[in-house]
């Protein structure tokens, strides 16, 4: 891609500083975005990417610094002003209203009017048009809450696109999109860029950055490190700039002798979600579960763990057939599940790291009556050290930690339950490269120590790097079982899209 040096500067942020109690989120950050460029921003969890964008969108006020949009000063504005001045924002968390329809969501805050009333016809027409542009057949009249997460993510994007903004910020838009949706999104982004819109693209997936970005800005610890043309930088260099040191992106795969069968599922079904699923995991083994979004991977994990009911089929754990009807029974049977929706199901925001850590096992560190606080503190501190939770303050409430560190706590919480089977659903979603390496390391250690791992991930390279075997789901059915040796992006994708059926 050619960098539009001839283009006007769409947006300039200078000397932005922002602190939250206890954290310096941004310090003297400069950022300049041109019209018609895709400007990527990368950085570790907590580097300040989202905060910078929220300041741009008027959600936070900077402690100091200037913002200039389209040549005009815009230092202190609110979300509405930001929007009317053409800033479109797709946040890391979905910002949609579940009880309104898709069309109403898309027009939210600026519904077309006829007289004093909402012009529903115009509104639906507009929504249909934008959704068509995004290549999806979501009905504009559907209640938003009835859509799947990836569909909601598309609506979120449609909502911003529909407003025809001059600057669009994508804050990790692909973290809950599958490959197919990602392709569509990239097409949309390219079209927008070609129309002269300035685009800011935040992602932890460096491959995406390399693919779609024109320039990239690296943030580290709330400071601006460097802005470079994407053409002139390699992923390794980017990682080095982000973490300030060399780092191999992936944990080196250990070759371990596989042990006893830890888990075997036979003929597992749940109406409308998955059908006749048979798979197994052995000790020391990391088994991947691949598939397109909506292929039923999460539901299998939930049913295994007892969060949903398994309608048919048997589960055998270490040779024993078990019935698991609740997470409690799941834990008792030696299963742990790191859920995909960290904010919704992983963490208790108001509780401290310590209390989050010991939640599933709290009855194990309790005598007849009381919790052994000393012992609790000890095992928690040890685990926090092992996982490099940063900052290492276990009495701090979990909600003030960055996403990656929250994820480590969720992982640690389940490691403390000493499971024989660890199920991971998108364990590195929204997690930066450094933390991702840490997490892979922890998973590897767990397998090394004799546990079995069932890992769901939408990032194929991650699965390929980490797993010994991969089961591929297609519309709730196991389409293929692929060994490490045979697993390539192509073979997995073919199975996932239904072009290849298991023998």
């Amino acid at each position: 891609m050619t960098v539009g040096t001839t283009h006007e500067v769409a947006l300039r942020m200078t000397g932005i500083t922002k602190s939250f109690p206890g954290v310096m989120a941004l310090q003297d950050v400069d950022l300049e975005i041109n019209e018609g460029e895709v400007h990527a921003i990368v950085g570790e969890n907590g580097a300040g990417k989202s905060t910078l964008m929220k300041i741009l969108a008027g959600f936070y006020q900077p402690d100091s610094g200037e913002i200039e949009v389209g040549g005009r000063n815009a230092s202190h504005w609110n979300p509405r002003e930001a929007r009317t001045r053409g800033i479109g924002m797709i946040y890391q968390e979905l910002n949609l209203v579940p009880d309104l329809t898709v069309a109403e969501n898309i027009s939210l805050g600026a519904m077309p009017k006829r007289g004093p009333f909402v012009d529903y016809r115009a509104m639906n027409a507009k929504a249909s048009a934008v959704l068509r542009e995004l290549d999806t057949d979501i009905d504009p009249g559907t209640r938003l809450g009835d859509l799947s997460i990836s569909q909601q993510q598309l609506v979120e994007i449609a909502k911003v696109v529909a407003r025809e903004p001059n600057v669009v910020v994508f804050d990790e838009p692909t973290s809950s999109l599958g490959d197919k949706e990602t392709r569509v999104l990239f097409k949309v982004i390219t079209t927008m860029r070609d129309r002269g819109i300035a685009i800011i693209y935040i992602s932890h997936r460096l491959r995406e950055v390399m693919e779609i970005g024109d320039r990239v800005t690296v943030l580290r610890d709330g400071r601006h490190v460097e802005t470079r043309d994407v053409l002139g930088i390699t992923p390794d260099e980017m990682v080095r700039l982000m973490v300030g040191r060399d780092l191999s992106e992936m944990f080196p795969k250990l070759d371990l002798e596989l042990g006893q069968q830890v888990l075997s599922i036979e003929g597992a079904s749940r109406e409308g979600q998955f059908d006749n699923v048979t798979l197994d995991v052995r000790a020391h083994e990391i088994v991947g579960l691949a598939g397109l979004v909506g292929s039923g991977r999460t539901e299998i994990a939930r049913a295994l763990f007892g969060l949903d009911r398994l309608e048919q089929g048997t589960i055998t754990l270490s040779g024993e057939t078990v019935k698991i009807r609740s997470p409690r029974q799941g834990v008792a049977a030696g299963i742990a599940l790191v859920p995909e929706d960290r904010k919704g199901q992983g963490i208790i925001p108001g509780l401290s790291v310590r209390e989050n850590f010991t939640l599933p096992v709290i009855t194990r560190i309790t005598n007849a009556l009381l919790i052994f606080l000393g012992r609790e503190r000890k095992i928690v501190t040890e685990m926090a050290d092992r996982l490099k939770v940063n900052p290492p303050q276990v009495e701090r409430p979990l909600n003030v930690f960055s996403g990656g560190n929250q994820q480590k706590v969720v992982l640690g919480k389940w490691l403390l339950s000493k499971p024989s089977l660890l199920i991971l659903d998108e364990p590195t979603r929204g997690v930066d490269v450094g933390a991702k390496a840490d997490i892979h390391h922890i998973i590897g250690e767990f397998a090394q120590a004799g546990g079995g791992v069932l890992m769901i991930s939408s990032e194929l390279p991650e699965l390929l790097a980490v797993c010994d075997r991969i089961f591929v789901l297609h519309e709730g059915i196991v389409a293929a079982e692929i060994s490490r040796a045979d697993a390539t992006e192509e073979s997995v994708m073919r199975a996932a899209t239904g072009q290849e059926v298991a023998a």
Partner: protein
Amino acid sequence: MKHFDIALIGTRAVQYRLLVMLLAVAIFGGVSVDDFLTMDTLQSVIDRATVVGFLALGLTPVLIAGQIDLSIGSMMSMAGITTIFLQPFIGNLPAAGVGVLVGVLIGAINALMVVVFKINSLVATLATLLIFASLALLLTNSYPLSSEDPIFGLPLTADFLVILTPRSAIFLIAAVLMFVWLKLTPTGRNLYAVGSDASAATSSGINSNGYIAASFVLSGFFAGVAGMMQSLSTAAGSPVAGAVMLIPAITAVVIGGTRLEGGRGSSLATLGGVLALGALTTALEYNGVPSYTQAIYTGLLLILLISLDRIVSGNSGTTSRARRSVRVAPRNSPHPRRNA
């Protein structure tokens, strides 16, 4: 093409159940009481529903915005005593206006507490409930005020269009207007958005705090109207008039199908709830059922309807592949609800 999803069927069920209730009450009343099914009964049912109806109408936008207002009864008492107290000083009509204004003012205080001082609405309005109930007693020295012009308010409950009275006609019109506002105008839709997810609404450029504040002021306005109407039609301003009104008002709104969690509801449903409850009360009264037994019936009804609602729109439904994308109550919804 019409798109029927479960939410829509759920909404239908909500409307339907009110009709079923009204019908059941009519049959029950008709069978058990002589001359129950008359225009006079209908007039009396609608008229009796008016005061609690105004309170319930005011409560509806507050609940849609995901908040709660426990202070409606106290606002109503304050409005009532103001209306009667001021009559000799500034005249009947201005006094009625100021009465309503008192409701608006207290509503504004609620709004201030919730929006500016960020006090949870359950706590804030519990406090204003206590404060203004107490103030009403202090101001009147606990004695109900008698109007010096008891005839002035009487036309409010006179015959009007066979089945109505002037005040019940105003109530019906208000309910319809509110329905139009909520369902068909952008500001109405925005209110639903705020109740459904305030932070998402804010990031869409909606002034969520403004809407929440407005809903409290509106609730104050309607409580003011309720108090004004009540005091005029009974020619007395009682400091405890509103004390017993909170529970029937909430019950009526909820029976109508408006959720306490915000984001859903309708003023016509509230109207239905108010009428259904009023009709039931009247039928039971005509049968000489003691008030405590009536309380048992209304309580059971409330629990039953809300449980049904839960089951109809709840998360227990199994989903089929055919309806993949149209599910109710997403389990992985990214919108964990923080408040009631």
